[in-house]
């Protein structure tokens, strides 16, 4: 079989040239494939970068919006406006002489504002984003292999 192929090539030398050309074109095609792949990944990376920039801006805008809404709530629940609303609803300011006191056993009284945890009371929340979303491909592979081989943490 091998000798028959050799003979065929000797009888038609253009086949050798075609083979060379085919190899060259295959190499070119491979090169273009790689370039295409590179351009595609680059494009995606650039898009992701621009999206990240937009998300940074969105985060800032949201932060401002939240602060603004908090202030708006405070504005519509301010002393003057709440008193006006109470009057509209038919409530009257109590006269100190009309107040009736009542002893409520165990009632500790109104508690002052607690806006955050006290020092030492902090339970750190679990990270929301898994490490596989933030680590590099190499780190991910390395950790995965280490996990499989059971050497993680040794």
């Amino acid at each position, binding site marked *: 079989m091998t000798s028959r192929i050799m003979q065929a090539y000797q009888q038609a030398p*253009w086949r050798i*040239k075609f083979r060379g*050309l085919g190899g*060259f074109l295959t190499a070119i095609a491979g090169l273009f494939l790689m370039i295409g792949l590179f351009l595609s990944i*680059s494009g995606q*990376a*650039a*898009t*992701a*970068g*621009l999206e*990240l*920039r937009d998300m*940074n801006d969105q985060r800032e*805008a949201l*932060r*401002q*919006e939240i*602060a*603004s809404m*908090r*202030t*708006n*709530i*405070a*504005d519509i*629940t*301010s*002393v*003057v406006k709440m008193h006006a609303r109470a009057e509209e609803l038919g409530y009257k300011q*109590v006269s*100190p*002489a009309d*107040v009736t*006191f009542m*002893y409520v*056993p165990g009632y500790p*009284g*109104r508690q*002052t*504002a*607690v*806006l*955050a*945890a*006290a*020092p030492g009371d*902090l339970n750190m929340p679990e990270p929301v984003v898994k490490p596989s979303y933030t680590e590099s491909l190499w780190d991910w592979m390395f950790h995965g292999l280490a996990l499989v081989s059971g050497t993680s943490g040794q």
Partner: protein
Amino acid sequence: MKFPALARTAFLGLILSLLGVVVIAQMINIQTSAVHRELSDMADEKYGYEVKTIYPERGSIYDRWGNLLAGNKTVYEIGLDMGSNYHVNSVAETFASVFKTDPRAIYGKVENARIHGYSYVALVDYALPEQVNAVKKIQSQFSSVNPSGRERSAPSLIGMLYSPHMVRSYPENSLAANVLGFFPYKEGSSAHGYYGVEGQYDDLLAGQPIQLTVSRNPYQQSELPTTPPGSDLVLTIDREIQAKVEQILDESVKHNGALSGTAIVEDPETGEILAMATSPRIDANQYWTASEVFKQPTHFNTAVGTIYEPGSIFKILTMASAIDKGIVTPETPFLDTGVLNVDGYEIYNWDDQAYGPVDMIGCMQHSLNVCLAWIALQLGPKTFDEYMAAFHIGSPSNIDLAGEAYLPFRGQGDPGWSKSTMATQSFGQGVAVAPVQFLMAASALANDGKMMAPHIVRSIVRDGVQYNVNSQVVGSPISGKSAATITELLATSLEVESSKALVDGYRLAGKTGTAEIPTPYGYTMGRTNASFIGWGPAEDPKFIVYVWLEQPKSSIWGSVVAAPLFRDIVREVVVLMDIPTEDFRQKVATQDLSKQ
């Protein structure tokens, strides 16, 4: 000569390959040549990065129950892209209708930007979201007719740019403005808080700005670090008490024709300021009106920034010192002849009358200058000065509010001192204090002899953790027994006097004060500072209230103008603080209602 087809193809391939090599060689040249690298570096330096300073959100301020007193809100800068097909007429007319501005001002700004070749011009800043929405609505209407703005005869608002940014906002407007101070947001990034909490805690509220070099290259984007906001503050102020005290004080100042008014409500057990009201005060959202409202900067918060001779309310400290030293008891007799000569200086009572034989309750009831001067002489200069130092008279209270004023106490050995100095100081002349300083001293009488540091911040919230500020004992100028004795003496004195400060259902201790105002030519006639300090319930004080009316016109006497003001405030405070009447408390104690 004829080339075979394959040779022609090979030749063409060679030419194209050479062309490719040339292109690649040039690419390598661009990447590596010094000239090109220099150009690339220059472009990178100029356009590749931007330096961003991220200012953290300024910390919020809350009252003791968590009601927001100072926060931040979004406003907008509206500008024009000068490279767009803008229509200056449409812009000017729209702004005139929405912002009530002079259209000529808009024309001027746009024209100036055009002449100077600016790419952008800011037309309006601090626009509210409602105003921005109004402009956007008009813009949308114009856009449906003239989408690109190329039609010059049709109106268009093309090229409008809206940039949001944050400003300080005080949702309660003028409430506690003297305590909060203000943040002049129009000064931009160089702004600092002034007066009050905004001034005192400016660094904490402001947080730490971060400067970043951010790449413009989309391949080099990364998440910007989160800037931690400034610390939030929870005040000791009770919004409801503050609002009520301000309302009563404003009415009193107006009714009595006083220049200004001050009222402070404090918990004597902790030193927490529950309300600190002054009249007049500003709306902190319009901080630029401060210079019109206050002619002197110290008047922004008279409770801490203004010192004055307190007059007869000072007698409670002299009497407390004498009781603590064992010089007098409430029953100690005194023969008031109406005049006392101290080193050739004659001291008279406020009404130039002689009251004859009285005890110490009578001395306080009739507010006898002669009696108190005699007590000071019995104490002696050294002991008197020691007690005044123990009460921190002449020293700042160090309350955590910006701009506290104080005047050092003139004691024995100081220039110009004589025994007559001490004698007049005993009834509140020749000594000056800021209201908060006298309040701190008097709080010892209402708190078993322990003087608590007055403070306005209850907690600081930073990085998600709330740190509470502990109450501090500044000193114990008198014993608990002496404090109880002087409280009982003052309560009896008010009852015997049938003072206008009394409140039905509650036993209160207190003292009125009428102080003539010193001038370079001596004390003025007819112009006084009227004050009252009192606390209650007498057997277990839960509040101490200090009021001061500056130069009231309806009456010069503290007993006529300041005592009713104190009463009106206490009437509301006992309800807002859930302090039951004496009858009810006795009922609980005797019948033991707690076990029912």
